[in-house]
Protein backbone atom coordinates (compact mmCIF):
# COMPACT_ATOMS: atom_id res chain seq x y z
CA UNK A 1 0.00 0.00 0.00
CA UNK A 2 1.41 3.39 -0.95
CA UNK A 3 1.64 6.31 1.45
CA UNK A 4 -1.21 8.08 -0.24
CA UNK A 5 -3.49 5.04 -0.10
CA UNK A 6 -2.66 4.68 3.57
CA UNK A 7 -3.52 8.33 4.13
CA UNK A 8 -6.82 7.94 2.29
CA UNK A 9 -7.62 4.85 4.30
CA UNK A 10 -6.89 6.66 7.55
CA UNK A 11 -9.00 9.60 6.44
CA UNK A 12 -11.96 7.39 5.59
CA UNK A 13 -11.52 5.56 8.89
CA UNK A 14 -11.58 8.86 10.75
CA UNK A 15 -14.71 10.07 8.96
CA UNK A 16 -16.41 6.75 9.70
CA UNK A 17 -15.52 7.06 13.37
CA UNK A 18 -16.91 10.59 13.33
CA UNK A 19 -20.11 9.55 11.54
CA UNK A 20 -20.84 6.51 13.67
CA UNK A 21 -19.82 7.61 17.14
CA UNK A 22 -18.68 11.14 17.80
CA UNK A 23 -21.40 12.95 15.87
CA UNK A 24 -24.36 10.86 17.15
CA UNK A 25 -23.09 10.99 20.75
CA UNK A 26 -22.70 14.76 20.54
CA UNK A 27 -26.22 15.14 19.19
CA UNK A 28 -27.63 12.91 21.93
CA UNK A 29 -25.81 14.98 24.56
CA UNK A 30 -27.18 18.25 23.17
CA UNK A 31 -30.64 16.68 23.05
CA UNK A 32 -30.39 15.53 26.66
CA UNK A 33 -29.19 18.88 27.97
CA UNK A 34 -31.78 20.80 25.93
CA UNK A 35 -34.62 18.52 27.03
CA UNK A 36 -33.65 18.86 30.68
CA UNK A 37 -33.40 22.62 30.32
CA UNK A 38 -36.77 22.86 28.54
CA UNK A 39 -38.37 20.52 31.04
CA UNK A 40 -41.50 19.81 28.95
CA UNK A 41 -41.22 16.04 28.36
CA UNK A 42 -44.67 15.80 26.65
CA UNK A 43 -43.17 17.95 23.85
CA UNK A 44 -39.47 17.24 24.03
CA UNK A 45 -38.57 14.24 26.19
CA UNK A 46 -34.99 13.63 27.33
CA UNK A 47 -32.91 10.94 25.65
CA UNK A 48 -32.93 8.89 28.81
CA UNK A 49 -36.69 8.39 28.83
CA UNK A 50 -36.65 7.39 25.14
CA UNK A 51 -33.89 4.89 25.90
CA UNK A 52 -35.90 3.69 28.85
CA UNK A 53 -38.83 2.96 26.49
CA UNK A 54 -36.57 1.17 24.02
CA UNK A 55 -35.14 -0.91 26.84
CA UNK A 56 -38.63 -2.21 27.68
CA UNK A 57 -39.99 -3.42 24.33
CA UNK A 58 -42.54 -5.74 26.00
CA UNK A 59 -44.20 -3.04 28.10
CA UNK A 60 -47.91 -2.79 27.28
CA UNK A 61 -49.09 0.71 26.44
CA UNK A 62 -52.73 0.82 27.45
CA UNK A 63 -54.75 -1.09 24.88
CA UNK A 64 -52.34 -0.65 22.02
CA UNK A 65 -49.81 -3.38 22.79
CA UNK A 66 -46.07 -3.15 23.19
CA UNK A 67 -43.36 -1.63 21.02
CA UNK A 68 -42.25 -5.11 20.03
CA UNK A 69 -45.65 -6.64 19.26
CA UNK A 70 -46.66 -3.65 17.14
CA UNK A 71 -43.34 -3.72 15.30
CA UNK A 72 -43.79 -7.41 14.52
CA UNK A 73 -47.33 -6.79 13.25
CA UNK A 74 -46.10 -4.06 10.91
CA UNK A 75 -43.21 -6.21 9.70
CA UNK A 76 -45.46 -9.18 9.03
CA UNK A 77 -47.91 -7.03 7.07
CA UNK A 78 -45.08 -5.65 4.97
CA UNK A 79 -43.45 -9.01 4.33
CA UNK A 80 -46.73 -10.62 3.25
CA UNK A 81 -47.85 -7.74 1.04
CA UNK A 82 -44.40 -7.26 -0.39
CA UNK A 83 -43.93 -10.95 -1.21
CA UNK A 84 -47.13 -10.90 -3.23
CA UNK A 85 -46.05 -7.68 -4.93
CA UNK A 86 -42.61 -9.14 -5.73
CA UNK A 87 -43.97 -12.29 -7.34
CA UNK A 88 -46.65 -10.43 -9.30
CA UNK A 89 -44.36 -7.55 -10.27
CA UNK A 90 -41.49 -9.70 -11.51
CA UNK A 91 -43.77 -12.06 -13.44
CA UNK A 92 -45.76 -9.33 -15.11
CA UNK A 93 -42.59 -7.32 -15.73
CA UNK A 94 -40.95 -10.18 -17.60
CA UNK A 95 -44.09 -10.94 -19.59
CA UNK A 96 -44.67 -7.28 -20.47
CA UNK A 97 -41.02 -6.71 -21.25
CA UNK A 98 -40.68 -9.59 -23.63
CA UNK A 99 -44.07 -9.63 -25.35
CA UNK A 100 -44.69 -6.38 -27.13
CA UNK A 101 -48.46 -6.77 -27.57
CA UNK A 102 -49.08 -7.35 -23.87
CA UNK A 103 -46.85 -4.44 -23.03
CA UNK A 104 -48.65 -1.94 -25.24
CA UNK A 105 -52.02 -3.25 -24.03
CA UNK A 106 -51.20 -2.85 -20.33
CA UNK A 107 -48.99 0.22 -20.40
CA UNK A 108 -51.79 2.83 -20.22
CA UNK A 109 -53.35 1.22 -17.13
CA UNK A 110 -49.98 0.91 -15.45
CA UNK A 111 -49.08 4.51 -16.23
CA UNK A 112 -52.33 5.77 -14.72
CA UNK A 113 -52.22 3.66 -11.56
CA UNK A 114 -48.49 3.92 -10.90
CA UNK A 115 -48.29 7.59 -9.83
CA UNK A 116 -51.21 7.12 -7.47
CA UNK A 117 -50.08 7.25 -3.83
CA UNK A 118 -50.70 3.81 -2.32
CA UNK A 119 -52.34 5.40 0.73
CA UNK A 120 -55.06 6.73 -1.56
CA UNK A 121 -56.09 3.12 -2.05
CA UNK A 122 -56.72 2.61 1.66
CA UNK A 123 -60.36 3.79 1.90
CA UNK A 124 -61.20 1.75 -1.19
CA UNK A 125 -59.37 -1.31 0.16
CA UNK A 126 -61.13 -1.06 3.51
CA UNK A 127 -64.48 -0.66 1.78
CA UNK A 128 -63.83 -3.78 -0.29
CA UNK A 129 -62.25 -5.97 2.35
CA UNK A 130 -63.96 -4.41 5.41
CA UNK A 131 -61.73 -5.40 8.32
CA UNK A 132 -61.42 -8.97 7.16
CA UNK A 133 -58.25 -10.61 8.40
CA UNK A 134 -56.04 -13.24 6.88
CA UNK A 135 -57.37 -16.17 9.02
CA UNK A 136 -60.93 -15.10 8.16
CA UNK A 137 -60.06 -15.53 4.51
CA UNK A 138 -59.58 -19.20 5.32
CA UNK A 139 -62.78 -19.38 7.38
CA UNK A 140 -61.14 -19.04 10.81
CA UNK A 141 -62.78 -16.26 12.79
CA UNK A 142 -60.08 -15.86 15.41
CA UNK A 143 -56.79 -17.70 15.26
CA UNK A 144 -55.57 -16.06 18.51
CA UNK A 145 -52.24 -15.38 16.78
CA UNK A 146 -50.56 -12.33 15.36
CA UNK A 147 -52.34 -13.14 12.09
CA UNK A 148 -55.57 -11.73 13.51
CA UNK A 149 -53.90 -8.35 13.07
CA UNK A 150 -53.23 -8.91 9.37
CA UNK A 151 -56.12 -7.16 7.64
CA UNK A 152 -56.54 -7.87 3.94
CA UNK A 153 -57.02 -4.17 3.28
CA UNK A 154 -53.57 -3.45 4.73
CA UNK A 155 -52.02 -6.24 2.68
CA UNK A 156 -53.66 -4.82 -0.41
CA UNK A 157 -52.25 -1.35 0.17
CA UNK A 158 -48.78 -2.78 0.80
CA UNK A 159 -49.14 -4.84 -2.33
CA UNK A 160 -49.94 -1.74 -4.37
CA UNK A 161 -47.01 0.08 -2.79
CA UNK A 162 -44.51 -2.62 -3.66
CA UNK A 163 -45.94 -3.74 -6.96
CA UNK A 164 -45.19 -0.74 -9.16
CA UNK A 165 -41.51 -0.22 -8.31
CA UNK A 166 -40.91 -3.94 -8.83
CA UNK A 167 -42.88 -3.96 -12.08
CA UNK A 168 -41.31 -0.89 -13.65
CA UNK A 169 -37.75 -1.87 -12.72
CA UNK A 170 -38.23 -5.42 -13.96
CA UNK A 171 -39.71 -4.02 -17.16
CA UNK A 172 -36.72 -1.73 -17.64
CA UNK A 173 -34.39 -4.63 -16.93
CA UNK A 174 -36.07 -6.90 -19.43
CA UNK A 175 -36.32 -4.34 -22.21
CA UNK A 176 -32.67 -3.48 -21.58
CA UNK A 177 -31.48 -7.05 -22.17
CA UNK A 178 -28.79 -6.92 -24.82
CA UNK A 179 -30.03 -8.23 -28.13
CA UNK A 180 -26.85 -10.26 -28.45
CA UNK A 181 -27.77 -12.42 -25.47
CA UNK A 182 -31.13 -13.20 -27.05
CA UNK A 183 -29.53 -14.00 -30.40
CA UNK A 184 -26.93 -16.12 -28.67
CA UNK A 185 -29.57 -18.09 -26.78
CA UNK A 186 -31.54 -18.53 -29.99
CA UNK A 187 -28.61 -19.85 -31.98
CA UNK A 188 -27.70 -22.14 -29.08
CA UNK A 189 -31.18 -23.62 -29.33
CA UNK A 190 -33.11 -22.05 -26.43
CA UNK A 191 -36.89 -22.28 -26.73
CA UNK A 192 -39.11 -19.35 -25.82
CA UNK A 193 -39.70 -20.68 -22.31
CA UNK A 194 -36.02 -21.39 -21.81
CA UNK A 195 -35.20 -17.87 -22.97
CA UNK A 196 -37.47 -16.44 -20.24
CA UNK A 197 -35.87 -18.55 -17.57
CA UNK A 198 -32.24 -18.54 -18.65
CA UNK A 199 -31.81 -15.18 -20.38
CA UNK A 200 -34.49 -12.61 -19.51
CA UNK A 201 -34.63 -13.47 -15.82
CA UNK A 202 -30.88 -13.52 -15.06
CA UNK A 203 -30.13 -10.62 -17.40
CA UNK A 204 -32.78 -8.48 -15.73
CA UNK A 205 -31.79 -9.62 -12.23
CA UNK A 206 -29.81 -6.48 -11.28
CA UNK A 207 -32.80 -4.30 -12.16
CA UNK A 208 -35.21 -6.73 -10.52
CA UNK A 209 -33.23 -6.51 -7.30
CA UNK A 210 -33.15 -2.73 -7.57
CA UNK A 211 -36.93 -2.85 -7.91
CA UNK A 212 -37.25 -5.14 -4.90
CA UNK A 213 -35.07 -2.83 -2.82
CA UNK A 214 -37.09 0.23 -3.79
CA UNK A 215 -40.29 -1.73 -3.35
CA UNK A 216 -39.61 -2.95 0.17
CA UNK A 217 -38.50 0.54 1.18
CA UNK A 218 -41.70 2.02 -0.17
CA UNK A 219 -43.78 -0.71 1.52
CA UNK A 220 -42.23 0.21 4.84
CA UNK A 221 -43.14 3.86 4.24
CA UNK A 222 -46.65 2.94 3.24
CA UNK A 223 -47.41 0.66 6.17
CA UNK A 224 -46.47 3.33 8.71
CA UNK A 225 -48.69 5.86 6.98
CA UNK A 226 -51.54 3.36 6.58
CA UNK A 227 -51.41 2.41 10.24
CA UNK A 228 -51.66 6.05 11.21
CA UNK A 229 -54.96 6.41 9.37
CA UNK A 230 -58.27 6.12 11.21
CA UNK A 231 -59.60 2.60 11.29
CA UNK A 232 -56.26 1.08 12.16
CA UNK A 233 -55.88 -0.55 15.56
CA UNK A 234 -52.38 -2.03 15.60
CA UNK A 235 -48.89 -1.70 14.17
CA UNK A 236 -45.94 0.50 14.99
CA UNK A 237 -47.47 3.39 13.01
CA UNK A 238 -50.63 3.03 15.06
CA UNK A 239 -48.66 2.97 18.32
CA UNK A 240 -46.89 6.14 17.22
CA UNK A 241 -50.11 8.07 16.60
CA UNK A 242 -51.74 6.57 19.72
CA UNK A 243 -48.81 7.64 21.90
CA UNK A 244 -48.91 11.08 20.31
CA UNK A 245 -52.60 11.42 21.18
CA UNK A 246 -51.65 10.55 24.76
CA UNK A 247 -48.77 13.04 24.82
CA UNK A 248 -46.27 10.20 25.33
CA UNK A 249 -43.59 11.80 23.20
CA UNK A 250 -40.92 9.40 24.50
CA UNK A 251 -42.86 6.48 22.92
CA UNK A 252 -43.35 8.50 19.73
CA UNK A 253 -39.62 9.05 19.39
CA UNK A 254 -38.84 5.44 20.35
CA UNK A 255 -41.23 4.29 17.61
CA UNK A 256 -39.59 6.69 15.13
CA UNK A 257 -36.17 5.27 15.94
CA UNK A 258 -37.45 1.72 15.49
CA UNK A 259 -39.11 2.57 12.17
CA UNK A 260 -35.95 4.23 10.89
CA UNK A 261 -33.70 1.36 12.00
CA UNK A 262 -35.89 -1.29 10.43
CA UNK A 263 -36.05 0.66 7.19
CA UNK A 264 -32.26 0.86 7.17
CA UNK A 265 -31.96 -2.84 7.98
CA UNK A 266 -34.31 -3.84 5.15
CA UNK A 267 -32.38 -1.70 2.71
CA UNK A 268 -29.06 -3.07 3.95
CA UNK A 269 -30.23 -6.67 3.67
CA UNK A 270 -31.48 -6.11 0.12
CA UNK A 271 -28.22 -4.43 -0.84
CA UNK A 272 -26.21 -7.35 0.53
CA UNK A 273 -28.36 -9.79 -1.41
CA UNK A 274 -27.88 -7.72 -4.53
CA UNK A 275 -24.12 -7.66 -4.27
CA UNK A 276 -23.81 -11.40 -3.91
CA UNK A 277 -26.48 -12.30 -6.47
CA UNK A 278 -25.24 -10.14 -9.33
CA UNK A 279 -21.52 -9.82 -9.01
CA UNK A 280 -21.33 -9.40 -12.77
CA UNK A 281 -23.49 -6.28 -12.83
CA UNK A 282 -21.90 -3.33 -14.59
CA UNK A 283 -19.08 -5.54 -15.81
CA UNK A 284 -20.60 -6.82 -19.02
CA UNK A 285 -18.05 -7.56 -21.70
Amino acid at each position, binding site marked *: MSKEELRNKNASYRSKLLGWTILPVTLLLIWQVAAKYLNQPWIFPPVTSVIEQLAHPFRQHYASGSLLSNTLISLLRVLLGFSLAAVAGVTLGIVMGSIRIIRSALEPIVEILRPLCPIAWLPFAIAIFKLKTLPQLFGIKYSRTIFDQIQLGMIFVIFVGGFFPVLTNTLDGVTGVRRNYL*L*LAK*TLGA*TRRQTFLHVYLPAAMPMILTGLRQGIGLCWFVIIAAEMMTGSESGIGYLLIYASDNSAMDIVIAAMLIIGSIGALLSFAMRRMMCSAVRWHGKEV
Partner: protein
Amino acid sequence: MEFEDSSKHIVDKPMALELRGVSKTFYSDAGAEVQALQGVDLLIRHGELVTLVGATGCGKTTLLNLIAGLDRPDDGYLHLGEDLNFGDNIAYVFQHYTLFPWRSVLRNVTFGLQMRGVTRSERKNRALELLSKVGLSNFRDAYPHELSGGMRQRAAIAQALAINPKMLLMDEPFGALDDTTRRELQQVLTELWQEQNTTILFVTHNIDEAIVLGGKVVVFSERPGKVIHEFEIDLPRPRNRLTSQFTDLFMQIRKTLSGQLD
Protein backbone atom coordinates in the same frame (compact mmCIF):
# COMPACT_ATOMS: atom_id res chain seq x y z
CA MET B 1 4.68 -29.45 -39.06
CA GLU B 2 2.79 -28.62 -42.22
CA PHE B 3 -0.82 -29.36 -42.81
CA GLU B 4 -2.06 -29.91 -46.27
CA ASP B 5 -4.69 -27.41 -47.17
CA SER B 6 -8.01 -29.15 -47.23
CA SER B 7 -9.78 -26.62 -49.43
CA LYS B 8 -8.19 -28.26 -52.48
CA HIS B 9 -10.21 -31.40 -52.05
CA ILE B 10 -13.40 -29.75 -51.12
CA VAL B 11 -14.81 -28.94 -54.53
CA ASP B 12 -16.73 -32.17 -54.80
CA LYS B 13 -18.09 -31.96 -51.25
CA PRO B 14 -21.80 -31.27 -50.81
CA MET B 15 -23.02 -27.73 -50.59
CA ALA B 16 -23.48 -26.30 -47.06
CA LEU B 17 -24.80 -22.92 -47.97
CA GLU B 18 -25.89 -21.24 -51.15
CA LEU B 19 -26.92 -17.63 -51.61
CA ARG B 20 -28.14 -16.25 -54.89
CA GLY B 21 -29.07 -12.61 -55.40
CA VAL B 22 -29.72 -12.05 -51.72
CA SER B 23 -30.72 -8.46 -50.89
CA LYS B 24 -31.66 -6.76 -47.68
CA THR B 25 -32.75 -3.20 -47.00
CA PHE B 26 -33.26 -1.57 -43.61
CA TYR B 27 -35.23 1.50 -42.74
CA SER B 28 -33.76 3.78 -40.15
CA ASP B 29 -36.01 5.32 -37.50
CA ALA B 30 -36.08 8.50 -39.55
CA GLY B 31 -37.43 6.46 -42.47
CA ALA B 32 -34.23 6.58 -44.50
CA GLU B 33 -33.57 3.57 -46.65
CA VAL B 34 -30.29 1.74 -46.07
CA GLN B 35 -29.47 -0.99 -48.50
CA ALA B 36 -27.24 -3.40 -46.60
CA LEU B 37 -26.94 -6.19 -49.16
CA GLN B 38 -27.49 -6.19 -52.88
CA GLY B 39 -27.48 -9.34 -54.95
CA VAL B 40 -25.09 -11.43 -52.87
CA ASP B 41 -23.99 -14.69 -54.48
CA LEU B 42 -22.05 -17.10 -52.34
CA LEU B 43 -21.47 -20.83 -52.25
CA ILE B 44 -19.90 -22.62 -49.33
CA ARG B 45 -19.21 -26.33 -49.27
CA HIS B 46 -19.18 -28.64 -46.29
CA GLY B 47 -16.07 -28.43 -44.17
CA GLU B 48 -14.82 -25.23 -45.80
CA LEU B 49 -13.34 -22.39 -43.80
CA VAL B 50 -14.38 -19.29 -45.67
CA THR B 51 -13.35 -15.82 -44.61
CA LEU B 52 -15.31 -12.81 -45.67
CA VAL B 53 -13.40 -9.57 -45.73
CA GLY B 54 -14.75 -6.08 -46.23
CA ALA B 55 -14.84 -2.62 -44.74
CA THR B 56 -16.70 -2.10 -41.49
CA GLY B 57 -20.36 -1.41 -42.12
CA CYS B 58 -20.56 -3.23 -45.43
CA GLY B 59 -23.39 -5.52 -44.39
CA LYS B 60 -21.29 -8.46 -43.26
CA THR B 61 -23.18 -8.80 -39.99
CA THR B 62 -26.47 -8.56 -41.85
CA LEU B 63 -25.35 -11.44 -44.02
CA LEU B 64 -24.45 -13.59 -41.02
CA ASN B 65 -27.78 -12.81 -39.39
CA LEU B 66 -29.60 -13.95 -42.51
CA ILE B 67 -27.64 -17.19 -42.56
CA ALA B 68 -28.22 -17.75 -38.84
CA GLY B 69 -31.95 -17.35 -39.41
CA LEU B 70 -32.13 -14.29 -37.19
CA ASP B 71 -33.47 -12.23 -40.08
CA ARG B 72 -34.95 -12.83 -43.53
CA PRO B 73 -33.73 -11.61 -46.91
CA ASP B 74 -36.01 -9.22 -48.82
CA ASP B 75 -35.10 -10.78 -52.08
CA GLY B 76 -33.08 -13.65 -53.46
CA TYR B 77 -32.48 -17.23 -52.54
CA LEU B 78 -30.79 -18.55 -49.40
CA HIS B 79 -30.44 -22.27 -49.20
CA LEU B 80 -28.92 -24.28 -46.38
CA GLY B 81 -27.47 -27.75 -46.81
CA GLU B 82 -29.80 -30.60 -45.94
CA ASP B 83 -28.51 -31.26 -42.44
CA LEU B 84 -28.30 -27.61 -41.39
CA ASN B 85 -31.03 -26.17 -39.20
CA PHE B 86 -31.49 -22.80 -37.53
CA GLY B 87 -31.27 -22.95 -33.74
CA ASP B 88 -29.94 -26.48 -33.91
CA ASN B 89 -26.54 -26.81 -35.46
CA ILE B 90 -25.59 -23.33 -36.64
CA ALA B 91 -23.54 -21.60 -33.95
CA TYR B 92 -22.63 -17.93 -33.82
CA VAL B 93 -19.68 -16.17 -32.19
CA PHE B 94 -19.85 -12.39 -31.81
CA GLN B 95 -17.13 -9.86 -31.13
CA HIS B 96 -18.78 -8.45 -28.01
CA TYR B 97 -21.26 -9.78 -25.46
CA THR B 98 -20.77 -13.28 -26.70
CA LEU B 99 -20.89 -14.90 -23.28
CA PHE B 100 -23.66 -14.68 -20.68
CA PRO B 101 -22.13 -12.49 -17.94
CA TRP B 102 -24.18 -14.16 -15.20
CA ARG B 103 -22.80 -17.61 -15.94
CA SER B 104 -19.37 -19.02 -15.16
CA VAL B 105 -17.19 -20.13 -18.06
CA LEU B 106 -18.21 -23.75 -17.55
CA ARG B 107 -21.92 -22.91 -17.44
CA ASN B 108 -21.55 -20.74 -20.53
CA VAL B 109 -20.11 -23.66 -22.44
CA THR B 110 -22.84 -26.00 -21.23
CA PHE B 111 -25.66 -23.56 -22.11
CA GLY B 112 -26.51 -25.07 -25.49
CA LEU B 113 -26.45 -28.60 -24.14
CA GLN B 114 -28.62 -27.59 -21.19
CA MET B 115 -31.20 -26.21 -23.62
CA ARG B 116 -31.16 -29.59 -25.36
CA GLY B 117 -31.84 -31.45 -22.14
CA VAL B 118 -28.48 -33.19 -22.02
CA THR B 119 -27.81 -34.58 -18.53
CA ARG B 120 -25.71 -32.55 -16.14
CA SER B 121 -22.76 -34.94 -16.01
CA GLU B 122 -22.70 -35.44 -19.75
CA ARG B 123 -22.72 -31.75 -20.53
CA LYS B 124 -20.04 -31.11 -17.94
CA ASN B 125 -17.77 -33.74 -19.50
CA ARG B 126 -18.27 -32.30 -22.95
CA ALA B 127 -17.61 -28.77 -21.70
CA LEU B 128 -14.46 -29.74 -19.82
CA GLU B 129 -13.12 -31.47 -22.89
CA LEU B 130 -13.72 -28.35 -25.00
CA LEU B 131 -12.28 -26.05 -22.34
CA SER B 132 -9.07 -28.04 -22.32
CA LYS B 133 -8.94 -27.80 -26.12
CA VAL B 134 -9.16 -24.03 -26.02
CA GLY B 135 -6.78 -23.89 -23.05
CA LEU B 136 -9.20 -22.66 -20.41
CA SER B 137 -9.34 -25.63 -18.04
CA ASN B 138 -8.14 -23.55 -15.12
CA PHE B 139 -10.78 -20.89 -15.67
CA ARG B 140 -13.91 -23.01 -15.66
CA ASP B 141 -15.31 -21.28 -12.58
CA ALA B 142 -14.37 -17.75 -13.60
CA TYR B 143 -16.96 -15.27 -14.81
CA PRO B 144 -16.62 -13.51 -18.18
CA HIS B 145 -15.74 -10.17 -16.58
CA GLU B 146 -12.80 -11.82 -14.84
CA LEU B 147 -11.28 -13.00 -18.13
CA SER B 148 -9.07 -11.20 -20.63
CA GLY B 149 -10.46 -10.50 -24.09
CA GLY B 150 -8.62 -13.44 -25.59
CA MET B 151 -9.83 -15.85 -22.93
CA ARG B 152 -13.38 -14.69 -23.46
CA GLN B 153 -13.20 -15.47 -27.16
CA ARG B 154 -11.69 -18.87 -26.37
CA ALA B 155 -14.65 -19.52 -24.08
CA ALA B 156 -17.04 -18.29 -26.76
CA ILE B 157 -15.57 -20.72 -29.28
CA ALA B 158 -15.94 -23.57 -26.78
CA GLN B 159 -19.52 -22.47 -26.11
CA ALA B 160 -20.31 -22.54 -29.81
CA LEU B 161 -18.60 -25.88 -30.45
CA ALA B 162 -20.38 -27.51 -27.51
CA ILE B 163 -23.55 -27.94 -29.55
CA ASN B 164 -21.57 -29.79 -32.24
CA PRO B 165 -22.45 -27.26 -34.90
CA LYS B 166 -22.37 -28.19 -38.54
CA MET B 167 -21.71 -24.56 -39.29
CA LEU B 168 -19.97 -21.88 -37.26
CA LEU B 169 -20.62 -18.22 -38.03
CA MET B 170 -18.07 -15.81 -36.64
CA ASP B 171 -18.55 -12.05 -36.71
CA GLU B 172 -15.16 -10.38 -36.28
CA PRO B 173 -14.58 -12.51 -33.18
CA PHE B 174 -10.96 -11.43 -32.79
CA GLY B 175 -11.55 -7.81 -33.77
CA ALA B 176 -10.99 -6.38 -30.31
CA LEU B 177 -7.86 -8.37 -29.47
CA ASP B 178 -4.22 -7.35 -29.58
CA ASP B 179 -2.05 -8.80 -32.33
CA THR B 180 -0.36 -11.55 -30.33
CA THR B 181 -3.60 -12.84 -28.82
CA ARG B 182 -5.27 -12.60 -32.18
CA ARG B 183 -2.60 -14.81 -33.76
CA GLU B 184 -2.83 -17.34 -30.96
CA LEU B 185 -6.55 -17.59 -31.42
CA GLN B 186 -6.24 -17.88 -35.19
CA GLN B 187 -4.04 -20.90 -34.53
CA VAL B 188 -6.50 -22.37 -32.02
CA LEU B 189 -9.36 -21.92 -34.46
CA THR B 190 -7.44 -23.46 -37.35
CA GLU B 191 -6.59 -26.52 -35.29
CA LEU B 192 -10.15 -26.94 -34.06
CA TRP B 193 -11.46 -26.61 -37.58
CA GLN B 194 -9.08 -29.26 -38.90
CA GLU B 195 -10.13 -31.56 -36.10
CA GLN B 196 -13.89 -30.98 -36.07
CA ASN B 197 -14.71 -30.81 -39.77
CA THR B 198 -17.08 -27.89 -39.17
CA THR B 199 -17.98 -25.44 -41.90
CA ILE B 200 -16.88 -21.99 -40.81
CA LEU B 201 -17.84 -18.61 -42.20
CA PHE B 202 -15.55 -16.07 -40.62
CA VAL B 203 -16.15 -12.36 -41.08
CA THR B 204 -13.28 -9.91 -40.59
CA HIS B 205 -12.07 -6.55 -41.80
CA ASN B 206 -8.48 -7.66 -41.39
CA ILE B 207 -6.98 -8.92 -44.68
CA ASP B 208 -4.09 -10.64 -42.95
CA GLU B 209 -6.50 -12.60 -40.79
CA ALA B 210 -8.64 -13.50 -43.78
CA ILE B 211 -5.65 -15.04 -45.58
CA VAL B 212 -4.25 -16.81 -42.51
CA LEU B 213 -7.54 -18.55 -41.82
CA GLY B 214 -9.42 -18.88 -45.04
CA GLY B 215 -9.45 -21.71 -47.54
CA LYS B 216 -11.32 -19.15 -49.54
CA VAL B 217 -11.38 -15.39 -49.06
CA VAL B 218 -14.52 -13.63 -50.18
CA VAL B 219 -14.07 -9.90 -50.72
CA PHE B 220 -17.11 -7.79 -49.99
CA SER B 221 -17.82 -4.35 -51.38
CA GLU B 222 -18.83 -1.27 -49.42
CA ARG B 223 -22.51 -0.75 -48.76
CA PRO B 224 -24.60 -2.04 -50.38
CA GLY B 225 -22.61 -5.18 -49.72
CA LYS B 226 -22.01 -7.68 -52.47
CA VAL B 227 -19.29 -10.14 -53.38
CA ILE B 228 -16.67 -8.54 -55.63
CA HIS B 229 -14.14 -11.30 -55.76
CA GLU B 230 -13.26 -14.70 -54.33
CA PHE B 231 -9.70 -15.88 -53.77
CA GLU B 232 -8.89 -19.54 -53.34
CA ILE B 233 -6.06 -19.76 -50.82
CA ASP B 234 -3.83 -22.70 -51.57
CA LEU B 235 -1.10 -22.01 -49.05
CA PRO B 236 -0.07 -24.77 -46.64
CA ARG B 237 -1.08 -24.47 -42.98
CA PRO B 238 0.00 -23.16 -40.55
CA ARG B 239 0.42 -20.21 -42.83
CA ASN B 240 3.58 -18.23 -43.00
CA ARG B 241 2.93 -14.52 -43.34
CA LEU B 242 6.43 -13.91 -44.65
CA THR B 243 6.22 -15.92 -47.88
CA SER B 244 5.92 -14.06 -51.14
CA GLN B 245 2.69 -15.88 -52.04
CA PHE B 246 1.17 -14.56 -48.82
CA THR B 247 2.25 -11.00 -49.41
CA ASP B 248 1.19 -11.18 -53.05
CA LEU B 249 -2.26 -12.31 -52.04
CA PHE B 250 -2.37 -9.60 -49.42
CA MET B 251 -1.62 -6.96 -52.06
CA GLN B 252 -4.16 -8.40 -54.48
CA ILE B 253 -6.91 -8.37 -51.91
CA ARG B 254 -5.89 -4.92 -50.73
CA LYS B 255 -6.17 -3.69 -54.32
CA THR B 256 -9.50 -5.40 -54.87
CA LEU B 257 -10.84 -3.77 -51.75
CA SER B 258 -9.55 -0.30 -52.46
CA GLY B 259 -10.17 -0.61 -56.19
CA GLN B 260 -13.83 -0.25 -55.69
CA LEU B 261 -13.26 2.76 -53.49
CA ASP B 262 -11.88 4.77 -56.40
